[in-house]
């Protein structure tokens, strides 16, 4: 791939890096043609010089081609130097032809070579060279018949008209053939590009569809719950409560009914939490805070307890996916427990942001009592166990007149990153 490296050397800087740039291919082809043509052109001067002929033309041509290369490298532009080279080269070639027999010259084939190089280098205007070549052949013919050549020469060589005609036909054939080759190649390239684009579109569509499907699935799960499970659970609760009211206060079945109500209530609540988990960005600390705050407000409205909350703006922090649901369970339990603290009148829920974790805290102004201890052990043990299992740090702070439960939830993209 040494040649590619050399081509890359001459590419303008901004295109070198960007293979998908629209002009990348175009410039690469011009450069390749020049870079292949240049050494081939350099072969000519030496033998020609040894044969005693003038080589200035070849050297000028080489300089012009180098100018094209440099123009591309530093200006990303080649039309002007290329057009200049094209025109100057015609003069140089004509010079070679004039002294070697005009229409009978062996250098005529250089014009055909020129056509090949032109179409290869610049397919947009290369085909114009067909016409300019036809014109130049015509000019050479004109010069030939006015050059005063010996008629014997004409007879030997088959006549200028025949040479003109053949060269014209060769030009048309050669030109047409090359032009078609170029066109075919382009078409192939375009077809491949199209297939690639199609594939990308298909993949895009598939991903979009999948995402929509998931979204619809979530919604329909929520709706299904609402329609079936939710209604059924409510029906169980309602009927159990109705049954309870029909039994006498000291009926032995009362505890059983209470248990039914508690169970269906519990199931209803944990389904609510699960649905929230399903339908929300449960890696977002703020959404978690909002959910718990809403619950706290709703819950404490039943009692004469003043509940308030505040949250710091923790930009762009994310929880591991399993964290949110567990934080909900812990704090719902904590909020329920507060009601049992003697004299709790105010409850405060807060979220603060630290380096590698987010802290949620529930604080109340009640007093831990003796009677609370037994239940407290069980409830607290639950919270501690759940915290440990999920990698949270659990803290219980007790002072006279204030109890505070704090949880540190680790984040997966800490601020330092």
């Amino acid at each position, binding site marked *: 791939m040494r040649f590619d490296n050399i081509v890359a050397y001459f590419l303008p800087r901004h295109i070198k890096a960007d293979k998908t740039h629209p002009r990348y291919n175009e410039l690469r082809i011009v450069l390749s043609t020049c870079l292949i043509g240049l050494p081939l052109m350099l072969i000519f001067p030496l033998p020609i010089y040894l044969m005693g002929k003038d080589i200035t033309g070849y050297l000028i041509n080489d300089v012009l081609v180098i100018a094209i290369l440099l123009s591309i490298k530093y200006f990303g532009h080649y039309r002007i130097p290329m057009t200049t080279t094209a025109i100057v080269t015609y003069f140089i070639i004509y010079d070679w032809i004039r002294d070697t027999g005009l229409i009978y010259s062996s250098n005529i084939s250089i014009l055909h070579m020129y056509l090949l190089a032109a179409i290869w280098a610049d397919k947009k205007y290369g085909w114009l060279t067909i016409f300019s070549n036809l014109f130049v052949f015509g000019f050479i013919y004109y010069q030939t018949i006015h050059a005063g050549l010996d008629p014997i020469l004409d007879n030997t060589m088959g006549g200028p008209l025949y040479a003109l005609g053949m060269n014209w036909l060769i030009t048309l054939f050669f030109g047409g053939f090359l032009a078609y080759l170029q066109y075919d190649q382009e078409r192939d390239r375009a077809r491949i590009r199209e297939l690639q684009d199609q594939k990308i579109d298909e993949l895009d569509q598939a991903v979009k569809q999948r995402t929509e499907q998931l979204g619809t699935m979530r919604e329909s799960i929520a709706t299904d719950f609402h329609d079936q499970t939710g209604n059924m659970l409510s029906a169980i609760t309602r009927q159990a409560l109705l049954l309870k*009211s029909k039994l006498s206060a000291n009926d032995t079945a009362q505890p059983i009914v209470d248990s039914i109500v508690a169970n269906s209530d519990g199931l209803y609540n944990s389904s609510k939490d699960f649905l929230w988990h399903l*339908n929300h960005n449960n890696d977002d600390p703020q959404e978690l805070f909002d959910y718990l705050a809403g619950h706290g*407000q709703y819950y404490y*409205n039943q*009692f004469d307890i003043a509940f308030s909350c505040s949250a710091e703006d923790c930009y762009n922090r994310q929880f591991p996916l399993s964290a949110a649901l567990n934080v909900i369970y812990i704090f719902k339990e904590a909020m329920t427990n507060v009601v049992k603290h003697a004299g709790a009148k105010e409850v405060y829920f807060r979220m603060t942001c630290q380096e590698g974790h987010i802290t949620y805290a529930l604080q109340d102004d009640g007093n831990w009592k003796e009677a609370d201890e037994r239940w407290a052990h069980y409830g607290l043990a639950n919270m501690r166990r759940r915290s440990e299992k999920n990698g949270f740090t659990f803290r219980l702070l007790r002072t006279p007149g204030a109890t505070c439960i704090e949880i540190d939830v680790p984040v997966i993209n800490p601020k330092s990153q």
Partner: protein
Amino acid sequence: MEKRITIIEDNPRIREGFVAIIEAAPGYLVCGQYSSCEDALKNLSADQPDLVLMDIDLPGIDGIEGTIRIKKIIPACMVLIITVLEDSDKVFRSLCAGAVGYIIKNSGNDNIIQSIHEALSGGAPMSLHIAKMVVQSFARPQDSPLSEREKEVLKGISEGKSYSKIALDLFISKETVRSHIKNIYQKLAVNSKAEALRVAGSNKWIG
């Protein structure tokens, strides 16, 4: 004078349950129970309820549309929406349609009676999520019709404060807080009728 209550709920077990609770509570009387809005509307004038308990999801005319129609026939009638989940969007739209609040279908008996009592004495509960939507609804270019006090109460709720906390902060009683909320609901219904009829967008289940 006993308060007359109509119940519209298509699940017969749940409806039965509600009827039983209300009948058992002093001061309330079930004047009609129906499984669809259409049936209830036919008998509304004859029943003359003070309050209608209506499921938000009904076959045929749903709770939101039903609220509008009931309020047309008996403007003074209160509508309490029953819902399985606190779906803010639907509940909010029924509030815009003129409902005074909502109760969760799974609530305990006392909770339900308390909600009915609060609604009738003017102060149905409002949650943090609903309050946020109300704030947004009133935040439009036209002048907010809320009084300063009402704005403070609404702000407090949208920040997650319980009624007791708001009462503490504003040096008013809990009952006053509730009556402010009642006024907010009334102004919301006047202000935001269009919201009620808006086609439901993304249903954010907040649980």
